[in-house]
């Protein structure tokens, strides 16, 4: 215990450390361990890449702190980051952690820039949250509209994960399909620990659906698609955003992916513009891995913050004002707040042609307002 004291004291001194003028801090508080570490790492990489190219007028520092999976760890991380010239925070995409951080961010007056899809984070009346990723209201409307309007399917079966991601998506998909006149013929939640997905596939097919709609995490999505391919399932599959993640496709043979589509905010590896291709190349060389929509969204978000700094914003409040009133032409889409902090209003549907693991953009939905709730 005697050894503990100096460390404790050191900690206190470090926490109260001296402040330098014109240096701004952009902490990255994302889940690097636990079940969301894949998505959190994308967030981290996107934010770090964006912050590499800072305006010359300021010195930028950025701590990366793991938030794990608990709200407690997220709040502690925010408290740790706060009070050190923080201009804005790249914040966890885990909805529960955002909900926990929001009141504290309001107290400290720090903008949180996130790619969390959880609907409720922008419904708390908190002016400090900015979501650079289409919320479930947007993506799930695009998801359902593609199934009904483009594929002409009327009997969707929904298989979702019993996590925050899955339950929120399921609620929005149910609403969206209802308003489009295509009621779900089957719906079931799947625990992330479930190994064999043949039981749920069998049950879903027994309901005679004309399309299988997935809202599962990366591993389970790949598992489901593989088991469907192995069993020669002919019913088309339109998956949730986890499918677009390159690491999901890496688990499957291209042939198994034939005809599979997925909803997402963007698919950087699919290219589309020279800027996106530059981003993808820079990302690959920096992190030796493939970027996904979460990385791109977080990148766009932090770029918009840096644009504001470049334009003279020096305090968190300046940045909040810039984010809530400005428009930013990002790589994935053009961002503009709807007044609640929802910056992204576009979603895309990508499809795999069976020859490569890189999907093609099949349909783009802009200015989606989202169905009720």
């Amino acid at each position: 215990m005697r050894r503990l004291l100096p460390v404790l004291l050191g900690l206190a001194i470090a926490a109260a450390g001296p402040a330098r003028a014109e240096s701004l801090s952009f902490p990255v508080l994302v889940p690097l361990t636990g079940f969301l570490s894949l998505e959190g790492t994308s967030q981290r990489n996107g934010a770090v890449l964006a912050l590499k190219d800072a305006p010359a007028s300021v010195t930028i520092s950025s701590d990366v702190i793991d938030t794990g999976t608990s709200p407690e760890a997220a709040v502690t991380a925010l408290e740790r980051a706060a009070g050190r010239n923080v201009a804005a925070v790249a914040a966890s995409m885990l909805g529960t952690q955002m909900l926990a951080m929001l009141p504290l961010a309001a107290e400290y007056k720090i903008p949180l820039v996130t790619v969390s899809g959880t609907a409720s984070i922008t419904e708390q009346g908190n002016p400090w949250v900015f979501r650079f990723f289409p919320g479930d209201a947007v993506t799930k409307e695009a998801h359902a509209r593609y199934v009904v309007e483009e594929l002409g399917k009327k009997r969707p079966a929904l298989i979702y994960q019993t996590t925050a991601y899955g339950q929120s998506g399921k609620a929005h998909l149910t609403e969206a399909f209802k308003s489009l006149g295509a009621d779900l013929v089957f719906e079931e939640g799947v625990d992330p620990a479930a190994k064999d997905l043949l039981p749920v596939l069998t049950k879903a097919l027994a309901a005679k659906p004309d399309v299988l709609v997935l809202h599962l995490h990366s591993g389970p999505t790949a598992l489901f698609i593989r088991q469907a391919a192995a069993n020669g399932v002919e019913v088309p599959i339109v998956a949730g955003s986890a499918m677009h993640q390159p690491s999901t496709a890496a688990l499957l043979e291209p042939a198994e992916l034939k005809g599979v589509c997925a909803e997402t905010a963007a698919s950087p590896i699919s290219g589309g513009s020279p800027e996106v291709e530059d981003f993808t190349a820079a990302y690959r060389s920096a992190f030796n891995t493939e970027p996904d929509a979460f990385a791109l969204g977080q990148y766009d978000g932090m770029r918009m913050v840096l644009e504001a700094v470049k334009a003279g914003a020096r305090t968190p409040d300046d940045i909040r004002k810039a984010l809530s009133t400005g428009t930013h032409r990002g790589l994935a889409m053009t961002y503009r707040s709807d007044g609640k902090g929802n910056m992204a209003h576009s979603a895309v549907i990508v499809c795999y042609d069976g020859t490569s693991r890189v999907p093609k953009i099949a349909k783009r939905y802009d200015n989606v307002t989202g169905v009720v709730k």
Partner: protein
Amino acid sequence: MITLQLLINGVALGAAYALVALGFVLVLNATSAVNFAQGDLVMAGGLLAVALAPHIPLPGIALLPLTILLMAALGLILALAAYLPLRNRPPVGVFISTIATGIILQNGATILFGPEPRAAPPLFSGGTVSVGGLTVAEQSLAIIAVAAILIAAQQWVFARTQLGRRLRATAQDPEMARACGVPVTAMILVTFALGTAYAGAAGLLLANRYFVTPTAGGDLILKAYIAVTIGGWGSVPGAVVGALLIALFEVGVSSVLSYPVALGALYATLLVILVARPQGLFGEAARRRA
């Protein structure tokens, strides 16, 4: 037809669980210590196979011996670092030291491999086999066969060889075994190596069909724990049967009801079994140290 398919999948899953539970119960019997890192060792075995695959472009069955060997070495390290220093201390200390080992393995894996889910190569071709109109994943059948061989090998070694007799003597009564000239510490090291090797084999088998992430171990240790308990604490055949029952229960109930219900029902059934038959389904085999 679909029932048969589900049955095969359930047995394949159960066979892999059985290897996990087997490794767990061997260490338990030899040391009366609960190895809480067993699930993370399975994950480590799976990722080891993933890492070996690009260097050895052969089917998974060729990687299996190497994986088993390397994991056995890891088992020795585990025993030296987390068991031997605590062997004369309260067993709950080993519980904590293996929890720490699990944390080290999990985070070491994240640093080395990243958080992405990975797939190990299939044991053979990875295709499907059609038998009389029934489509079965070849991997499922291969898992069942390999697990059966590995379990039979353990039974044979323990029943028929000098090493096996010494291992059993150590598990039954270490003081007595030592008095009879059995090198008890060496036998405990061998047991750890064996238990870890079985975890590694299970990892390789599971990581093709069900993928592997650094956090995959937590679920498996719970399954092994349940399997060993319902099979009768310390009973080797009981652990294998317990693992098969859990997998069949999981696949069976979830194909009729749903996954959350299956999981809830598993724990509810477990509680009923425990209250109605407190010595496990097949009776308790672990010796009670006075």
